[in-house]
């Protein structure tokens, strides 16, 4: 930088640096680093009889994290997150493929279909599903009108409903990276594949899937991680029966009023996230695809 002094009119490069990088740095410091340090420090604190945080060093919060009850909830969260991710890939891939390979004006429309739900708060949409899927909701009315079932089917407050809600909320995060990956596909490779006698199925699994693997990876990361934290979906559609890590954290900060324990749980979640991203990098994923 200093060697290029002649290129601009500033005597020193402090001011331009300050102006360009400064605001972002300050923002990141204030909104990411400092809160993160606070969470880290708090996770080693204890509480007094009135649940106030007392800044005295202790490991008890971390010791509590390995209790069998919590381990069970971690497992449960991981299973739900995994199911959600798999469902998102299965549903999202064909859709992303269709958008990416459509060459007409419909492409924009299809793309918008993914984006538009974002304009409504996800909490409201999840409450909408609760009404829609209820015993006297429209979906059951429809089922009974068609004659599929005489009695209303109980959809709500089951683990499956939680997974459904998660898939519904998170599927755009799967479709968009997939779309980017499929968009980049070189048509000539597909032509070559069919010229060499590969059937469409073979072309798909041996050419298209490997070439779009980065999209599948980054989509999976972007679905899996938020899924662990979306406590409201399991509260509203799951009825609060199947806790996830997010519910545990929420409870420590709200009703249980044990902030240090909540902080320790958050640290665990952050560590899990970092490990997953590291794994993604190791497997050759591109960090740019994650948008981080």
């Amino acid at each position, binding site marked *: 930088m200093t060697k290029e002094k002649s290129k601009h009119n500033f005597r020193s490069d402090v001011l331009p640096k300050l102006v360009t990088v400064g605001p972002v740095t300050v923002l990141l410091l204030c909104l990411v680093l400092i809160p993160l340090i606070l969470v880290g420090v708090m996770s080693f604190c204890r509480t007094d009889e009135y649940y106030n945080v007392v800044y005295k060093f202790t490991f008890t919060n971390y010791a509590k994290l390995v209790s069998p*009850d919590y381990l*069970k909830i971690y497992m449960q969260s991981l299973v739900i997150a995994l199911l959600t991710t798999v469902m998102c890939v299965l549903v999202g891939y064909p859709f992303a493929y269709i958008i990416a390979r459509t060459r007409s004006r419909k492409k924009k429309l299809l793309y918008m279909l993914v984006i538009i739900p974002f304009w409504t708060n996800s909490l409201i949409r999840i409450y909408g599903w609760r009404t829609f899927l209820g*015993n006297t909701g429209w979906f059951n009315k429809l089922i009974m009108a068609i004659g599929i079932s005489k009695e*209303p089917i*109980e959809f709500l407050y089951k683990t499956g409903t939680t997974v459904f809600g998660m898939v519904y909320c998170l599927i755009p995060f799967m479709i968009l990276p997939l779309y980017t990956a499929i968009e980049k596909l070189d048509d000539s490779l597909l032509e070559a594949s069919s010229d060499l006698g590969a059937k469409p199925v073979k072309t798909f699994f041996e050419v298209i899937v490997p070439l779009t693997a980065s999209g599948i990876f980054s989509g999976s990361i972007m679905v899996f991680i938020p899924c662990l934290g979306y406590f409201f979906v399991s509260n509203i559609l799951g009825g609060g029966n199947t806790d996830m890590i997010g519910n545990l954290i929420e409870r420590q900060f*709200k009703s249980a009023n044990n902030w240090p324990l909540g902080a320790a749980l958050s640290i665990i979640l952050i560590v899990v996230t970092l490990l997953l991203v590291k794994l993604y990098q190791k497997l050759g994923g591109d960090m740019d695809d994650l948008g981080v």
Partner: protein
Amino acid sequence: MKNMKKRIAAIMTTACLAVTMLTGCGKGSSSDGKPASAGELNIFVWTEYVPDSVIKAFEDETGIKVNVSTYSSNEDMLAKVKSESAGAYDIVLPSDYMVEQMIGQDMLAELDFEKLPNFKNIGDSFKNPAYDPGNKYSVPYLGGACAIAVNKDKVDKEIKSYADLFDPSLEGKLVVLDDFRAVIGITNKACGYDLNETDKTKLDETGKKLMELKKNVVLYDSDSPKSALISGDCDAGMIWSAEIALAMEEVPSIEVVYPTEGALIFQDNWCVTKEAKNYDNAMAFIDFMMKPESMVMVLEEFPYMCANTEAVKMMGDAYSSNPAKNPPAEAVAGGTYVGNLDSDVLEIYSEMWTKLKE
């Protein structure tokens, strides 16, 4: 295509402008015609508890702008009041045990009864509660019981007590409050122990009993537990008495049952925070809320047990004789408040709750 884009951009811009203009209008009209000096009041209250109509009436009468925030458990409220900047809320509406706790933590300001002439409307049995002797920090608002709601059309078993809610025939049919003190409290009761049991061997029993309840409960909801009963997603439950009253109005086959073990009862109270920035406005609001006319408006929307004797008189028989709206005197007399527990016991409660929810 280009034209199209331009047109869309134009439409978007107009829409944005329209929206900003509308918000401008809203602000303008609400501040118009009111004395500008009256100031503000920040209140933090339970969800579904203080109707907008009453707040509007207060604003119209005094010109004070009221900002309402809501919570759905006492612990949430405590956490929020602590974490917000000092004086973010002027008025809070804690339940019995939480009033005691907040007094203990020096979070509440003493009330100035010179400014609360309508305190005379409060019934004597509601004055001078054990959690705030002499009403130094709190005046009662509404209360009730965590009673049992049963949809008679769908549940054959006769339900008389909290213990009956543990019956296997109710598997997958219950809605209960998302409140660990209430759910574990009634389980203590069902085992024949005290609502606020502290004996560890007895709590072991409660923990086991709780696993029977786990099979029966499909929904934990404190925001609007009546909804699941009305929509038919749940057939019975342990919820707030007035929520049952509202469900009964929608679905006549729903009944209210006060458990034979003695119900969990609660009393919510107006309190002013220590750091309140608008103390005088807070006093004006609390006094306004003790007017019989205001309480009638409240009761029409949220028919809880009312501490305001004058308002109860004005409500007439339809309110007084409805057991869900106005719990019978013996149910209240035989009821127990949630009490404050030591942190080691509270930890046991918290662990039980985690087991229930895993």
